[in-house]
Each structure stands twice: as structure tokens, then as C-alpha cells.
């Protein structure tokens, strides 16, 4: 097949487009995903879920269910130890084991529609399902609290009796888990210095990651207390930490084998089925497979927060932003831990603004506990700021991209929360979009409009381990603990091949289980190619170091006298008479020169700021003025991607994030009834875009190498989801004259706005007469 080499690259393998090493398994149906494991004597587990959004559990009776032929065991929260309440660092997140345990199986109270209450293991999934119908749970329904606004009202029903926060003090029960604030300069003076100040209010809906593979786990429990769980997760080591905490077992006693994963987007960075499968396996002595249905996924896994946002920004008539104030309340779901903090840390970080005040609130409500979703917190936050910037640009009459370029963050800009940006590509990204054929093309036709917006995401770093083994035939295998969710095996193999001077098809990438590689954090935060890639790079360099030592031994010189270039070892000509060996020739002699060569590395690259990424997007829409339906006509996304290791998969990340952002903008939302019961529990009415709803998605890769990575890699996975909702709102305004400030901008909502807009115009016209 054609492998296009990026001309401008100084690399041999990096920047090419080889076939992914795990591709054939995935196009032939041989790859094993979470639900694809079968073991002799395996039982099937199903979970009983609360029909109430908020209720006290008075009693659970399951003797009838136990009598159903084929039923082998039933578990409830009583089968779990009471976990520690104090928050602990687990993988990338701060988690209270107690809250985590209560989310796995409800203890005393149910806090959302779909909250697990009990689980059954039986000889067939149908028998397990029928058994659930025989379990009798006596609930005392309580008043549900569905939005942050309601939950923050004085006297609102309290979800978690012992929840407190620093401001309200130790004696005040509350639904507000955290208040975060960033402050800089003199806000009042900043707004006084502005010629134009706009303040607006926004709301966004709860939306789900929408990965196509429902959660699935198989638990196996040995009599000696050692256990194994096969599961689809973004982080096998995170599952090990979280599951052992909830089950009260030593971490070393659990082996987590990550299956191939059918999408996650952040939603598979915690545990749901895993501890239940293990608990049922322990109780029955059989392997137990627990799989979720789609409605269980939507009702009871972790979507991302709906938010309420207020944005106030001031600019001079020349277009200089003088001050900005943002207030945001995030719905965390049933337990603390919304993405409010990253939302507050990204909301206006793309811009260099002297005077700032940012307030963020993390609020519990009777919805499922939120989990990470691609650039967590950033998309909802950017919706407000990026539409207000569009209004300001219009008011002072400058190009909306110019406004962003003029105020754009650059190397040396201090972020609102402290650190100073190193080399970043925000301005280059906006300029690339401004120069694009799309942005400069003419958009004609009635009810059509073009909008732009930008977005920022930090990209996480965290910890990764890698090993590189050189085989005696000179091929190599690369072992990491990073689950491959979108083609990272290819990137890992390419990085090792680049360093070792091997052809890509002679490097085999392996994703290992938790017993077979050093600790590695979740595949999340766009960190794998960055951090695990760095570990692979270092492990390959470790191999090169050892190869030089071997050669030096054979040539009776020092390793410093040996050069390694493109798979060939040479003596420095200037030092002694020329000698050379290829890696292959040396590998064949490993046995006689000291045994196998194994390269190892581990990295810890820190939390925020590991290769910040920026995206800017241009969208053309057409609005049906009679129905309020929006059609996306054309979309182009530009993103600062650092060095693109495999450009095709980088483009894929930009396209995928853009598509999710479009779904978030137009039709995706959780619809609850007045009692807090989720109405749209399937993919018929949780409306993700089909390929008939989207145009081709044009991408512009802006390669501004990341100075903190040996190959200049930046995370590329997330930021593309951030700008689309605001860009589409801005395009709708150009098409119709209506500013949408609530997501999703679904036909009923947009139609209502269009009618109000027409009525008000007629009103004005009438008054004018």
C-alpha cells in the first residue's frame, strides 16, 4: 500500500503512514473486546438498578430470586467492606473509596435512576435477568435534585449527608463539593478600560461519550485469594487500584487483563462491572461475565456535566481584551468530582488577559456520577467564552479570528492558574485556519452562515513504563501498559523503529497486563503518544546504549568510540580503524556477547501542561427556517499537533473529536422526566451523528514541536471536541440573526428562538410605523 512520507520531516519512520500492527485482527473480527471472552463453567451476571432518582433503601429481599433454577449467587453492598471515606490519589484522579464503593453498589441510599442495588449470577443471561424481576426492594422515595441551580438553592434536599466544603464550614450540610477560584489583576479597572463589555448566560446539557462498546468484564477468583479480571478499560492499573480498594483486597492479588477496547473517550477510566464480576466469582467459584446493555450504559455510567455559565468580557475598540469574568457551576452527578477544575483552567487560557476572575463550583445532583469525557470540562466552558468573543468581534467590527490572534496566548504567556506557556501553537493554528481555502471561500445561499471558534486543552502527562526486547533475528518487541484505543500500538512501534533504525514491520508492539509491565496510568488526557511514547523512546535509547557497550567490547574500545546510526554501529573513524556491524549482525551474537538485550524506561511527566494543544474550527451551516433543523455543510479544523507520528491517526483524532462536538452542539442530551427518570435510554433517542449527518471533515495539521518531548510530540486526542459547539452557534447566528446560548441547539429549541426573533422584529417594525 501507499505510505506517504511527510516531505518536511527529518525522521525516517515518524511522519509516515504504515498499516497499524493490530489492524488485521480488527477487520477480520478476531480481536477480542470486553464481551468476547468465554471460560469453561462461566456464569453470567446482571445488575438490578434503582427506578428512583433519589430514595432510601429500606430493605432488599432476594430469597425468591435465589430459588429460580440456574441462579447461583446474589450480591448487594452488604457483600462489600465499608470503604475509607478519605479521598485518595488513584491513578489520575482523587477518589473517595467510600463514594466509589457506593457508586458500584448503593449503600443505604440510591442517588440516580439506574444506580446499582444488587447483582445476580446465573447459568444464562436470560435467567439472570428474570431473577432480577424477583428481587424485592423497598424504597422510600425522596425529592430529586436534578440541576446545579436547584442543588445550590438554600434548603435544597441534601444528597450526601456528610458532604461539606471549606467555605460553608464543617457544620453546614451542602451539595456544593468544591469552589475553585482563579484571580488576576484588577477586574473593575479592566472593565472600565474597555470600550465594549458583553455579559451573557449559558447552559449546556448532560452528554455521554457514546462509545459503541458497552462495558463488559469477566471476573475469575482463585481459592488462594488471587483474582483476575478481563475488562475493557482505558487503564488496567487504575482498575487494579480502584477495584482492590473497593473489594478490600491487596493490590498485588488482582491481575487486570485489558481487552481490546471499543471506545472510551474518558468514560472507561473508572470501575463499574469489574468489582461486581469479581464479587460474584468469589461467591460462586466460577468465572462470571458481567456486561451492560446500552440503556445501562446511558443510565448508569459516567456522562459529562451539564453546566450553568456566566461570561463577561471587555475589549477596547482596537480589539484588546482588558478583562474577563467567568462563573461556572458543574453538575457532578451523584458524587463529587465533575470536570469543573479543568473547565476553569481552560475556559479562557487561550488568551492573554491582564485582569481575570474565574469561579467554578462542583455540585452534586441526582444524575449518574460524571466521568471524564474528551477534554473534560473544556467544551462546555468554551461554549460561553467563544460565543461572547464572536459577539465582541462583531460589535467592534473586526474579524473573529483576528480578535483571537490579537489576544492569543503564546510562548511566555502566563496561564490564569500560574505556569507560563512554553512554545505553543495557538496563534499559528488560528492563522492556518484564517489562511485556509475554506475560510476564504464564499458562502452563498439563503439561511446559510459561517462560524469560527477556538479551543484549548492541556493534555495530561502522568506515568508510563515501557520495555523494548531485541530478538536474536534483530527484530524487536515493544511492551507497554497503555491500552490501544485509537491506534497507539502503531505510534509506539514507529517511535521504537525510528530510534533503532528498524523497518516498522520488524517491531511488534504489545499491550501487557498489570503483572507484565511497570505501572502505567490510564489511556486518557491525550497522554499515551506523549508519555508512553517518551518511555518507549527512552527504552529504545537504553537498547542503543547497551548495543554500543556490546560493540565496544567486541572492538576493544569504549562505548563512546561507537556510533549508532540508522541501525548500524560504527567505530569513530577518527579514533581507530573503521569497524561496523548492523543491529541484526550484533543481535545474532547476543548469546556469545553477554546475553539478551532488554531496554527499559519509566517516566513521570507530571499533571497539567504536558504539551498544550489548541484547535480552531470553521463551520458552514444551513438552517431550515421552518423547522429549526441545522445541516452542517462544511467543516475544517486546524490543530497544533506537535510532531505527527502517524498523520492518518492524528487526522482521525481531529475528525472524531469534531464529530463528537457537532453531536454535542445539535442533538445530544440527557432527557429526564419530572421524577428524575431518564427518558432517552437508547441510541434511538440519544442522537449521535450518523454519517448522513456529517460532511467530509477537513483537517489542517499545524506542527509546532513540543519542547518537552524528544520527538516534539503533543497530545492530539482531545482538543478537537472543544470548539465545535461555539463555532456552530456562531454560524447559526450568521445564518439567522439568532444567538443560541443553550445546548443542544436542537430543532425545537432553535425553532422557538427563531419565532421569538421574528415576533420581536415584527414588534419593532410595528412600533416603527
Amino acid at each position, binding site marked *: 500500500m501507499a505510505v506517504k512520507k511527510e516531505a518536511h520531516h527529518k525522521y525516517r519512520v515518524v511522519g509516515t503512514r504504515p498499516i497499524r500492527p493490530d489492524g488485521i485482527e480488527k477487520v477480520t473480527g478476531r480481536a477480542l473486546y470486553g464481551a468476547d471472552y468465554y471460560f469453561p463453567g462461566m456464569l453470567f451476571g446482571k445488575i438490578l438498578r434503582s427506578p428512583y432518582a433519589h430514595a432510601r433503601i429500606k430493605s432488599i429481599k432476594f430469597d425468591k430470586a435465589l430459588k429460580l433454577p440456574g441462579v447461583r449467587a446474589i450480591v448487594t453492598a452488604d457483600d462489600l467492606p465499608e470503604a475509607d471515606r478519605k479521598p485518595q490519589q488513584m491513578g489520575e484522579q482523587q477518589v473517595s473509596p467510600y463514594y466509589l464503593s457506593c457508586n458500584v453498589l448503593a449503600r443505604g441510599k440510591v442517588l440516580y435512576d439506574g444506580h446499582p442495588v444488587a447483582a445476580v449470577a446465573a447459568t444464562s443471561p*436470560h435467567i439472570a435477568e428474570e431473577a432480577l424481576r424477583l428481587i424485592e426492594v423497598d424504597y422510600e422515595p425522596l425529592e430529586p435534585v436534578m440541576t446545579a441551580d436547584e442543588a445550590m438553592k438554600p434548603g435544597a434536599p441534601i444528597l450526601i449527608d456528610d458532604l461539606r466544603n471549606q467555605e460553608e464550614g464543617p457544620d453546614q450540610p451542602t451539595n456544593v463539593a468544591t469552589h475553585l477560584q482563579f484571580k488576576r489583576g484588577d477586574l473593575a479597572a479592566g472593565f472600565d478600560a474597555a470600550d465594549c463589555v458583553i455579559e451573557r448566560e449559558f447552559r449546556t446539557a448532560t452528554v455521554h461519550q457514546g462509545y*459503541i462498546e458497552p462495558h463488559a468484564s469477566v471476573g475469575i477468583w482463585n481459592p488462594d485469594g488471587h483474582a483476575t479480571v478481563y475488562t475493557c478499560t482505558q487503564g488496567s492499573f487504575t482498575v487494579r487500584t480502584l477495584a482492590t480498594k473497593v473489594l478490600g483486597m491487596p493490590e498485588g492479588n488482582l491481575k487486570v487483563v485489558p481487552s481490546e477496547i471499543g471506545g472510551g473517550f474518558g468514560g472507561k477510566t473508572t470501575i463499574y462491572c469489574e468489582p461486581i464480576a469479581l464479587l460474584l466469582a468469589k461467591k460462586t467459584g466460577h468465572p462470571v461475565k458481567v456486561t451492560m446493555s446500552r440503556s445501562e450504559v446511558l443510565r448508569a455510567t459516567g456522562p459529562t456535566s451539564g453546566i450553568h455559565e456566566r461570561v463577561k468580557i471587555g475589549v477596547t475598540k482596537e480589539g484588546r481584551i482588558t478583562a474577563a469574568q467567568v462563573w461556572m457551576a458543574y453538575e457532578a452527578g451523584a458524587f463529587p468530582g465533575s470536570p469543573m477544575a479543568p473547565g476553569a483552567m481552560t475556559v479562557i487560557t487561550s488568551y492573554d488577559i491582564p485582569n481575570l476572575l474565574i469561579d467554578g463550583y462542583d455540585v452534586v445532583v441526582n444524575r449518574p456520577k460524571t466521568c471524564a469525557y474528551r477534554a473534560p470540562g473544556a467544551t462546555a466552558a468554551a461554549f460561553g467564552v467563544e460565543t461572547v468573543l464572536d459577539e465582541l468581534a462583531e460589535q467592534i467590527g473586526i474579524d473573529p479570528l483576528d480578535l483571537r490572534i490579537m489576544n492569543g496566548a503564546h510562548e511566555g504567556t502566563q496561564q490564569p492558574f500560574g505556569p507560563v506557556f512554553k512554545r505553543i501553537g495557538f496563534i499559528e493554528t488560528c492563522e492556518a485556519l484564517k489562511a485556509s481555502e475554506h475560510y476564504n471561500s464564499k458562502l452563498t445561499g439563503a439561511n446559510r452562515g459561517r462560524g469560527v471558534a477556538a479551543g484549548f486543552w492541556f493534555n495530561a502527562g502522568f506515568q508510563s513504563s515501557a520495555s523494548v526486547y531485541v530478538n536474536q533475528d534483530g527484530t524487536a518487541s515493544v511492551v507497554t501498559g497503555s491500552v490501544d484505543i485509537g491506534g497507539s500500538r502503531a505510534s509506539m512501534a514507529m517511535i521504537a523503529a525510528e530510534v533503532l533504525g528498524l523497518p516498522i514491520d520488524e517491531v511488534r508492539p504489545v499491550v501487557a497486563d498489570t503483572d507484565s509491565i511497570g505501572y502505567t496510568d490510564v489511556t486518557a488526557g491525550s497522554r499515551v503518544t506523549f508519555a508512553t511514547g517518551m518511555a518507549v523512546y527512552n527504552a529504545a535509547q537504553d537498547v542503543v546504549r547497551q548495543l554500543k557497550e556490546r560493540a565496544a567490547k567486541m572492538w576493544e574500545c569504549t562505548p563512546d568510540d561507537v556510533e549508532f546510526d540508522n541501525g548500524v554501529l560504527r567505530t569513530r573513524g577518527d579514533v581507530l580503524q573503521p569497524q561496523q556491524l548492523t543491529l541484526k549482525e550484533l543481535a545474532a551474537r547476543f548469546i556469545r556477547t553477554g546475553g539478551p538485550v532488554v531496554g527499559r524506561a519509566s517516566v513521570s511527566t507530571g499533571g497539567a501542561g504536558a504539551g498544550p494543544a489548541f484547535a480552531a474550527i470553521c463551520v458552514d451551516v444551513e438552517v431550515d427556517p421552518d423547522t429549526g433543523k441545522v445541516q452542517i455543510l462544511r467543516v475544517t479544523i486546524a490543530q497544533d499537533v506537535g510532531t505527527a507520528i502517524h498523520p492518518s491517526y492524528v487526522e482521525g483524532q481531529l475528525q472524531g473529536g469534531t464529530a463528537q462536538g457537532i453531536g454535542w452542539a445539535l442533538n445530544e442530551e440527557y432527557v429526564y422526566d419530572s421524577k428524575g427518570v431518564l427518558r432517552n435510554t437508547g*441510541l434511538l433517542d440519544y442522537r449521535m451523528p450518523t454519517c448522513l449527518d456529517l460532511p467530509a471533515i477537513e483537517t489542517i495539521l499545524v506542527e509546532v514541536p513540543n519542547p518537552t518531548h524528544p520527538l516534539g510530540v503533543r497530545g492530539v486526542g482531545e482538543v478537537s471536541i472543544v470548539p465545535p459547539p461555539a463555532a456552530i452557534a456562531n454560524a447559526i447566528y450568521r445564518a439567522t440573526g439568532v444567538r443560541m446560548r443553550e445546548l443542544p441547539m436542537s430543532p425545537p429549541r432553535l425553532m422557538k428562538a427563531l419565532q421569538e426573533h421574528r415576533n420581536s422584529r415584527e414588534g419593532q417594525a410595528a412600533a416603527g410605523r
Partner: protein
Amino acid sequence: MAKRTLVETVINNEPVELLCEPRQSLLEVLRDELHMTGTKEGCLTGDCGACTILVDGRPVCSCLMLGVEAQGHKLETIEGLATGAELHPLQRKFLEHASLQCGICTPGFLMSAKALLDKIPRPTEAEVRYHLAGNLCRCTGYDKIVRAVLDAARESG
């Protein structure tokens, strides 16, 4: 164990006799009874297309058909798409165009795309998008999938 029924069918040109419960979907029969796990479950309501197989050449959601209804029909699944060691052109093009990221929707897309190309060997982009609208992909935004199908048609057409 509930009463099981004998079903005679043809899967990927192989005659197959199997026993299943009437309440088992064809998807369950393929996966839980035959361990043919290439056909995936995404929703069990016919909204995602991950479980798409061909029944007498027509694309069908195997989650919305009972196993017993397969009696006497010809089934095609992802496991039968490649002929021996030779990948189907669609499989090759999906790899070349990087049309899969997580890969869970890929078998369903490949089977829907096969049904399309069997019916319309040289489809337009609009026809491709229409015929694949019953398959959801959350990773790719569809762009590279559509390109792969058009390229496969171009090559074989």
C-alpha cells in the same frame, strides 16, 4: 436449562446445525453458542449496526432476529469476509485509509459496505453515506470510512 430447538442454517457457506433457546437472538447464538465473536453488540435495539450480518444477502441487525428464525437461511458474518488468506478489498482499504480507531464498529460497517457494493458496485459518496447510516461510529467522524468504501469500489469496479 430451557428447552432448546434444532436450527439448520448456512454460515459463511458452511452448513451448520445448532441447538438454541427460542428466546436467544441470532446475535447471542453466534456469540454465546458458536463463539463467533466478530459480530459485536452495541445496543440491542437496532440503532447502532454493530451486529450487522447478511441474511440471504441483505443487511440485518442480528440483535433483532431470533436464532430460530435463521432456519433455512444463508448467513454471512465478518468471519467469512476474507477468502482464505486473502483480505476482502473493503478490509484492505479500511486498513490503508486508517478507517478504524477502536475497531468495535468495524465488522458491522464492513458487512453493510459489502451489502452496498454487492448491490451498487460504483456508489456515489451520497449513496455510501445513505447505506452506512444504520451503522454508528463514534471514533472517526466517518470521513475515512467513506473514503475507504469509495476507494474499494473504485478498485474492484
